[in-house]
């Protein structure tokens, strides 16, 4: 069983609950143990940096320090948390001066950080550590014919980490194909959904959501799959407001990639947090059911 220091992040305790439950369920099914970091704190998403850069790094460093103690890779399911942790970690390695400042602050909490842990996104753990081959072997309900728009969003890709093609990544598509779904190719998969503006600049954010929905729907997607609670909430919960603002009639389900994986792995929908969405994901269930029936025949 592979173990990871798991950093769920605040959103997974509230708006992203179903992401957390589905991540846990899928991890279990894939022999992955996500050991939650003890007494973690908020990483600050995009709202810390406008106030104090050093504080932003320190808050993330506290979580990294706790992960370092365990010697396990730091895994975040939320793209914003992932980006913050990734860069804090790499700056710690690179900038001794910054590390000294941060460690001075961490001392107050009896912690020390050196930037030695590896920071990973949950999807990347499933793809690289578990492996597509292994996942494929465990799929019992392939989501055959389900047209999924893989939505990468921003911070999982950008700023450039060291491994991925930031303009035209393909790993999400690979994962979706593995669980039997049909990933659609659409240009907006790495375009920003405006998540961080939804409170501070509603008009701009809704326009950004609209463009994404439009592109996915024009490509006949049945569902948008996300890798981040911020994107998920933004794309799903605000669809009504988009419709009101722009006179559209969008109603496309938005699911976490872990929820789709869970369905394909035959996990009961209740354990994946399915059924709590604003736009029903019932069609997804139907796909999984059909798959099962085909199998029974």
């Amino acid at each position, binding site marked *: 069983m592979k173990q990871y220091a798991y950093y769920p992040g*605040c959103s997974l*305790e*509230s*708006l992203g*609950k179903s992401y957390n439950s589905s991540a846990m369920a899928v991890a279990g099914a894939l022999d992955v143990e996500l050991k939650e970091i003890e*007494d*973690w*704190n*908020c990483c*600050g*998403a*995009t*709202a*810390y*940096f*406008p*106030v*104090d*850069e*050093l*504080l932003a*790094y*320190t*808050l993330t460093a*506290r979580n990294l320090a706790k992960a370092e103690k365990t010697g396990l890779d730091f895994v975040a399911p939320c793209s914003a948390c992932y980006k913050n942790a990734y*860069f804090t970690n790499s*700056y710690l390695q690179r*900038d001794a001066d*910054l590390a000294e400042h941060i460690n001075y*602050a961490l*001392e*107050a*909490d*009896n912690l020390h950080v050196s930037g030695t842990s590896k920071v990973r996104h949950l999807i990347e753990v499933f793809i690289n550590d578990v492996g597509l081959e292994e996942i494929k072997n465990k799929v019992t309900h392939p989501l055959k014919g389900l047209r999924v728009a893989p939505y990468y969003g*921003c*911070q999982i*890709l*950008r*700023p*450039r980490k060291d491994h991925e093609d*930031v*303009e035209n990544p393909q790993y999400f598509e690979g994962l979706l194909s593995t669980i039997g779904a049909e990933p659609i190719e659409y240009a907006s998969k*790495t*375009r*920003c959904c*405006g998540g*961080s*503006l939804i*409170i*501070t*600049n509603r008009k*701009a954010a809704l*326009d*950004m959501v609209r463009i994404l929905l439009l592109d996915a729907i024009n490509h006949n997607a049945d569902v948008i799959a996300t890798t981040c609670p911020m994107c998920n909430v933004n794309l799903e*919960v605000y669809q*009504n*407001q988009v419709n009101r603002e722009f006179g559209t009639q969008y109603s496309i389900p938005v699911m976490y990639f872990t929820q789709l994986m869970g369905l394909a792995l035959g996990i009961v929908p209740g354990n994946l947090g399915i059924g*709590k*969405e*604003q736009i029903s994901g019932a069609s997804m269930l139907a796909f999984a059911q059909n798959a099962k029936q085909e199998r029974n025949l």
Partner: protein
Amino acid sequence: MVDELFFSHEIANIMYASHGEPITNCLQCGTCSGTCPAVEFMDHTPRQIIGMIRADLKEEVMASNTYWTCASCFHCTVRCPAEIDIADMMYALKRYSMWKGQFREGLIGPDFSEAFVKMIVNSGRSFEPLLAATYLPKFSARDIIQEGLMATGLVLSGKMPLLPKKIKGLKKFQQMVRRIIPIGEPS
């Protein structure tokens, strides 16, 4: 007497840990602004902001809504042919305006950021409902109603908790924060 720093130098200085090249390298090619998904809602395009910083037009830059309209999607950063971290520059401008208290009236961003940080300093975690107080007063009546309807839906579906969480080691956590910024005695 100390000469006053050029605004362009100040901004360069506070792009502290940025990966990017200095904004003096900007070619003014407009890739950032051509890429930006929120540019329509900005007073000035990101490229213009760089030009304005280089021209030391401090008042005009501070009064622009551009940097508060940045969604931090970093698309400009990865495409910039001069490898300037433009999104990080926007953060630097936000910080600068917060320190100097110089930003345009009526923006939600500054209050929101401040409230967010306060909340985290007080509890160690973020909690959406508490933040509503910072932005609802600036929303229109229609927006408030919609926000209310949505929140109710979220609570009913069990997605939004009603009570904020606090971390266990809060006291030490706050001592840690105090070593970075002065937040006063623990409440």
